[in-house]
């Protein structure tokens, strides 16, 4: 069995974990007699984003741990995928329009799949190279910007990014 109960869960181990979205707009996890509104945390958001998922209740306690969503029934899997889309959301950068240095910060103007965006990073905060390629930039507020394949961006974007990629 690849599903385990979190330490806070007191339900019996009988039955399978199931997930569903309810009218209150939350994802609910049911296991045995116990059910809770949960949110999903990826344990390895960049190394293995699709597996090893922690389902946490409103007190941030782990209710259940899903090693592989394939072990869930189809309805639960679909519900989980919807939750993962929100939990794993980052801006996907499609074009870099401007990178300017100012006093103590670097100002970025980019086009993302979600729309145009400007953000700032500290001068000594460098983009992070991800395990499976791609770059991840964290702005001053904590929002993340993902460049899936910087080498496949347009020429101007590549030129602007040149100093930040290996």
């Amino acid at each position, binding site marked *: 069995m690849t599903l385990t109960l979190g330490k806070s869960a007191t339900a019996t181990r009988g039955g399978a974990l199931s997930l569903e979205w309810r009218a209150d707009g939350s994802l609910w996890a049911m296991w045995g007699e116990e059910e809770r509104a949960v949110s999903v945390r990826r344990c390895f958001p960049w190394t293995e984003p699709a597996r090893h998922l922690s389902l946490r209740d409103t007190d941030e306690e782990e209710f259940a741990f899903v090693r592989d969503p394939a072990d869930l029934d189809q309805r639960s899997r679909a519900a989980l995928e919807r939750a993962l889309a929100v939990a794993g*959301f980052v801006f996907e950068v499609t074009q870099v329009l401007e990178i300017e240095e100012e006093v103590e910060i670097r100002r970025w103007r980019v086009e993302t799949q979600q729309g*145009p965006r*400007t953000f700032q990073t500290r001068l000594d905060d460098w983009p992070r190279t991800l395990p499976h390629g791609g770059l991840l930039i964290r702005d001053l507020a904590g929002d*993340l910007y993902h460049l899936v394949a910087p080498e496949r961006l347009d020429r101007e974007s590549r030129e602007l990014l040149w100093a930040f990629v290996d």
Partner: protein
Amino acid sequence: MSTQQQLDDHIIERYTAQPTRLPAELRRQIEHAWQGAPVQLYALADLDQSLRLTVAWLALGPRHIAVAQRESTGWHVRSVERSRIEAIREAPGLSANTLTILGASGEPALALLRYTHRQRRAFENIRFVLEEQIQGHERELVDGDADRLYAESVARPIRDAQALVSGRQTAVIRRLLGYLKPYRRQLTLGMAAATVITLVSLVPPYLAGHLIDRVVRPAQAGTLSLVQAAKVAWLAVAAMALVYLVRQPAVHVRLRLMSIIGEWVARDLRSELYEHIQRLSLAFFSRKRTGSLITRVSADTDRLWDFLAFGVVDVSLSLVMLAGLGTVLLTLDWRLGLVMTLPVPVFCWLIYRHSEEITRLFIRAWRKWSRVTDVLSDTIPGIRVVKAFNQEQREIERFGERNEDVTAEFNRIHASWTRFWPLLMLGVHMMTVAVWVFAVPRLLGSGAQLPVGTFVSFLLYTTMFGAPIEVIGQMARTINRATTSAHRVFEVLDTEPEIRDVAEPVRLEPVHGRVTFEHVTFGYDGVRQVLRGVSFDVTPGELIGLVGPSGGGKTTIVNLIARFYDVSGGTIRIDGVDLRRLDTGHYRRQIGMVLQDPYLFHGTVLENIRYGSQEAPLNQVVAAAQAANAHDFITKLQHGYDTVVGERGHTLSGGERQRVSIARAILHDPRILILDEATSSVDTETEREIQQALERLVAGRTVFAIAHRLSTLRKASRLFVIEDGRLIEHGTHAELLAKPEGQYRHLYELQLQLQ
């Protein structure tokens, strides 16, 4: 509108491309729907349900919340009564957060909003107020604060990271040059010397040309007598000698004066900055990184010295030099003058472009350099772990790889500048060749006549173009670097201390030590309250134990007693006088602190014990050390009380440092003493010794002691149990243990079980 809010609005406008506040028409619409009740807080939900960027608002009023979404016909506003809200959930994600506002169980959500981390603080403010309401604690909000709180929550990460974003570059330079005012005389002299250097440098080539055309050639042609020619020639030689005799002392005066002025200005800035830093409130230090503040006092002022001593003069004189050269050359011969002067802007532009390119290369090299230093700062402090896991070889390889990488980048920089400068010089030489190309036919008699002397002057002037062109080309970078440093320095200087004395502050002489809290509320950010209506009255000489879970507000209470912050609501009185009316400096001299991690300064044991009482005689120092159980270990040290304890007292153990800090507090003889986990990080034997020392220290003073180990507070006059910002229980140890359902009893029993 306050300056702070103007700055926040400016930041939002410039850096986020989102509205600086709730649109006025929407605000009116919401307040109309609420029968005129004001919007007290609001936040922007910038993601829609399919996670695309959007603009929607959540507003909070005294009795309602409203969610507004833009539709083709205008704003669609949905209001919900706050009384219907029964739960609120926030699900944080990597970049998308979801706030769900719930009514009765099983019913659809009252509101569901998605937003990025940029908006999260604003949402947290609203969430906090609603959670308070759900828990039955009404939170009074000041009407009219909504814009300020929204702007602050969005702008704050940028404001904290960047220095004085509102300052224009020219204004900053002007302000910086203002620091030269006190040295006007020296500056005038230095600038005059620099001007002399520039102008006299133009003389020798002119003299050479003049000598050839007016003396040598006429003498050779026999139109000027040899005696007359010799006389003029020697005069010219004397003039040349005079030029150099004037120039070199001027060089000396300029270098010496400008370096000294630069040092003076840097000294003034450093002193002003350091003095100002000492006066700033703790809130400022929690926002800024220590390293960044140290850099401002050291490296930034040093960079400003360089700019003021040399940058300003170099740039202005290079402009004068280029203008002078251009004028002289065009006057001598306008055709050749044009050949020489027209390419100058092109050279300046090329140097500018090159410095841009070099900057890009440096960014890449710095990034790789930071990877090298990452390995160093990881493995050198963590060398025991590296060795314990036998990872030396792996670390060597990791370092080697990054070292190779950064070397390649630095070599790329060297390749760039070593290619550029010879090419640029080739360009300058080509300018000389061009002068020859245009001049030779004229020298040989075709076209407009060109005297040989003028030609020679031109050749000599050619060699003088290089240096000013280089300075002008680098000018943008020089000014940028200086203004960056100036921004960082001025940001600190422009920060107002949050704790300020009233016009005629009261001095309590003597302080008896009565401390009264009257409905004290406090929040670090204006919305989330850390203390919620705390009231107590402590009489002089009482020992008060502050206990309760971490984050409950214990440290905030002692910070408020020390007036590191001012209360948000209610009053703190010392001997019946409002703390805000006291002379802060005088009052703090009556306060002593012994902290969990005692801070010793680099210096001797003696200097550290005397830190708050510099004039104390040695016998009192020894008595204080004896009372603190520190005398024995100090006398065993090779240099006794004169032992240098090193940076932060690292040559002493934790228990020894603590006892020195207790001796410091005893010698300081405060009326009000704060002990913050003073014995929590030492072993049992040391704790016993420290406990003995503390018992001597607390006698006859008002003491507030924070401790997690409840056994250490048995002798307290009273214990205050602080939880979630409230005083939930108080009484003696025995009284509190007698409460069967009491929180103190529960904590005490838990600790007993652990032992």
